[in-house]
């Protein structure tokens, strides 16, 4: 009964997505750990980390699609939530280094010793405890989203105005995190991590573990997002997207509805950032750059917004292309390709890859129907 309901809520596309992610989450670590390097089936740790990175981006894209695709809030500053989650994880990892840093200070991270900090800033307290750090991964982006959203939605800042101030938000954070006085490592950010939960972050086993964790988190993110959009609440969000004022005249407190999905989305982005950092091994202020946030919007647009699966697909496809393009002689053309994609998608495929796929499918179906009816009429005597 519950299973049947779950299957109905996930839709066919969603189930396929979940199955693929689950398969990837099992097979790739298995191919990495169990199959010896010489074998053609072996997947190198580097490849696994790269795919793990894509999956973090997919999670981030789902978070973005939830607010943009379903509620019409185009955030050009969502990268800020991703980066804040990443920083919270980075701070935990920094505290785990302990006295193994270059300066050997058991409490202070290297950059603080270098900058003559005498004691740990309050912002860093408690980050040596994993549960606390994970709480912050959710709370810090969530709180920022709450305050920002509460102010913005209450005063009915919508459309491009909202987009512009979200961009200003991440721009302000970008500038802030470059400053050494912020106490987050300034320009260099946080890096040189050693352990996570007592395991060496560089070790192959840990990396496989992180990969599995990312897949699990992606599955959870998708299921939560799907449950949200399939509920009546999801319908209210779509109503707000299509006719905000009408929704308000029905008696809905639009600002509350927006705020909830906004905060949930920010937390999802934070979790994606937190899983991203131990895999790539660094977090620095460049993650806050406004261009990152806009790029993420393009993943969603390319995959097909308002579909969740499309967002994840777009994130993986674009980043795979980026990997191909930015290595080797194609590097100089990456921005041409990315810029071209922006234009192409908005002009030629407003519903993204998923939309194109559905068009093709429905056309095939109708052609088949036409063919069937022709066949049927062909049998009839003329």
């Amino acid at each position, binding site marked *: 009964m519950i299973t049947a309901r779950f299957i109905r809520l996930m839709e066919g596309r969603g189930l396929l997505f979940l199955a693929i992610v689950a398969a990837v989450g099992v097979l790739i670590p298995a191919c990495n750990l169990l199959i010896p390097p010489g074998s053609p089936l072996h997947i190198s740790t580097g490849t696994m980390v790269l795919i793990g990175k894509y999956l973090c981006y997919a999670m981030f894209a789902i978070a973005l699609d939830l607010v943009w695709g379903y509620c019409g809030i185009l955030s050009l500053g969502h990268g800020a939530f991703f980066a804040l989650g990443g920083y919270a994880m980075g701070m935990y990892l920094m505290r785990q280094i302990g006295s193994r840093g270059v300066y050997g200070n058991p409490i202070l991270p290297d950059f603080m010793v270098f900058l003559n900090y005498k004691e740990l800033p309050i912002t860093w307290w408690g980050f040596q405890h994993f549960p606390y750090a994970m709480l912050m991964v959710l709370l810090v982006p969530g709180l920022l989203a709450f305050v920002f959203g509460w102010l913005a939605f209450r005063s009915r800042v919508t459309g491009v105005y909202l987009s512009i101030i979200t961009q200003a938000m991440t*721009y302000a954070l970008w500038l802030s995190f470059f400053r050494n006085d912020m106490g987050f490592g300034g320009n260099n950010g946080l890096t040189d991590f050693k352990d996570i939960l007592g395991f060496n972050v560089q070790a192959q086993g840990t990396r496989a573990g992180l990969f599995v964790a990312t897949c699990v988190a992606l599955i959870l993110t998708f299921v939560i997002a799907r449950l949200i959009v399939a509920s009546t609440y999801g319908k209210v969000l779509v109503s707000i997207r299509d006719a905000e004022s009408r929704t308000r005249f029905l008696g809905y407190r639009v600002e509350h509805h927006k705020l909830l999905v906004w905060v949930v989305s920010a937390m999802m982005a934070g979790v994606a950032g937190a899983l991203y950092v131990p895999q790539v091994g660094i977090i620095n202020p460049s993650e806050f750059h406004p261009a990152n946030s806009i790029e993420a919007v393009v993943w969603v647009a390319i995959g097909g917004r308002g579909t969740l699966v499309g967002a994840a697909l777009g994130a993986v496809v674009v980043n795979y292309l980026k990997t191909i393009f930015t290595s080797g002689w194609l590097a100089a053309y990456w921005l041409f390709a990315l810029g071209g994609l922006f234009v192409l998608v908005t002009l030629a495929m407003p519903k993204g890859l998923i939309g194109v796929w559905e068009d093709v499918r429905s056309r095939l179906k109708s052609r088949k129907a036409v063919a069937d009816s022709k066949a049927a009429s062909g049998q009839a005597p003329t």
Partner: protein
Amino acid sequence: MRPAPLLRTLALLVVMCLGAVGPAFAQGLDAGLERFKADSFGDTEAGIAAVAASAAPQGVAILEALADRRLFAGPAGVFYRDKAGQGFDARTGQPATVPADAGMVRLNNRLRNAVQAALGSMTLLSPDPAQRFRAAEAVFRSRDASALATIEAALPKETVPRVRRAFEEARAAIILSTPDAPEAGRIAAAQRIAEAGDSDAISLLRQFSGQTSGGLKAVIDQGIATIEQAQRIRAWAQTLWFGISLGSVLLLAAIGLAITFGVMGVINMAHGEMVMIGAYVTFVVQELFRAHAPHLLDWSLPLAIPLAFATAGLVGVAIERGVIRFLYGRPLETLLATFGISLVLQQAIRTWFGPTNREVSAPSYMAGSFEFIGLQITYGRLWIVLFTLCVFALLLLILKATPLGLQMRAVTQNRRMASAMGIRTRFVDAMTFGLGSGIAGIAGVALSQIDNVSPNLGQSYIIDSFMVVVFGGVGNLWGTLVAAFTLGIANKMLEPFAGAVLGKIIILVLLILFIQKRPRGLFALKGRAIEQ
């Protein structure tokens, strides 16, 4: 120390009595030069006095050379070198080769003072007003009592007001620093110095505030307070000027956006790249001039203005015709597509011109600075402020007083009605977008003077530009003007307390809060149509 004033008075007397009789000085000079050959401090001292007294045109050069160890005496005569090493015959002042057997004329500290004192007197009486002015300022700082007589003598004859003021201040400084001068005189002197009002004056007064008492101290403290007040005002004015200067840069960057975004409602994320194109056009024009007509280099900037307008404007029209017109009424999609265009344009520039900064030099009329009521104003900044205001006025004129402007306003207010009245709305769209882009290109010409011309030039302005337009109220050019200057001035006001980066962050946060409070900007349009 004792003989120096004596000498100087002597020299002065000789100079003053013998005003215009040339040949006698030639003899005086010759006699003085003879004494340098003796290489004894006593003779050298007499020589200095004689040269000072001779008032020969090359006298200053000789004594300066002496002070700088560039004066040589030998059997063949006395010679000196100028700072570049060129030799001169001291007798005639004509270029000559310094003979190998001529030895350097040596000085001790006492003689060095004598040379400086003699030089001070001579320059105070120099026929060149600029030199007199410098000498008076030097006396003001040194407060050398021995110069008092010279100044007193020179003052009544001084006709150049600037130099006269400097003399008066120098005299006041000397009198103030003479403890046995009459109290009334010193009070008057302190008042005179306070009137000067610059930083030299206040440091002098501060120095004497502690050493004096009674009425004189009161006057000095009063003077210090007055100057401090004036300095505070000046500091404010300077900040204000910096703010206006920054504001004009913001306005320049935002003004094109005020058209495309403010009037047409199109979110053009490639706006910054239009600015960048303008800057690169300036670079190319300047390089062409450098290669083909170096003597006309100063003209490259004015010529770049129409070219930048045309280039950026054409690119703008191409973008509008090629992409944006398919996206009217879908602002979020427009935003994404134009961001893609901005990436392509950046990369194109990077491919053609390389990723590094390109040098655009300032024409001569934009170099240097001048002082205006105590403010340091660079010509470059002044030009940009004036230029910005001109562009703004021109734009206003285009919108209010030309047929195109009228059609633009008609189309933005009611597209269907405008179309029904025979306005070619598509043409107007393209022209409006071209105008906004062209103005961004013009902004690029100006910004090439104060910023690095690099592929990233545009990116650094885009967020600021949007902030300005949104802050000012969309669709309101005057709002954009006020917003740009408000933000510029606020930024510069914050900088002394918060530093440049934190100041900018604070401004951004305040802006975000402001938009929450007034989502439609400072000067929002009201009405039913707007609320839809």
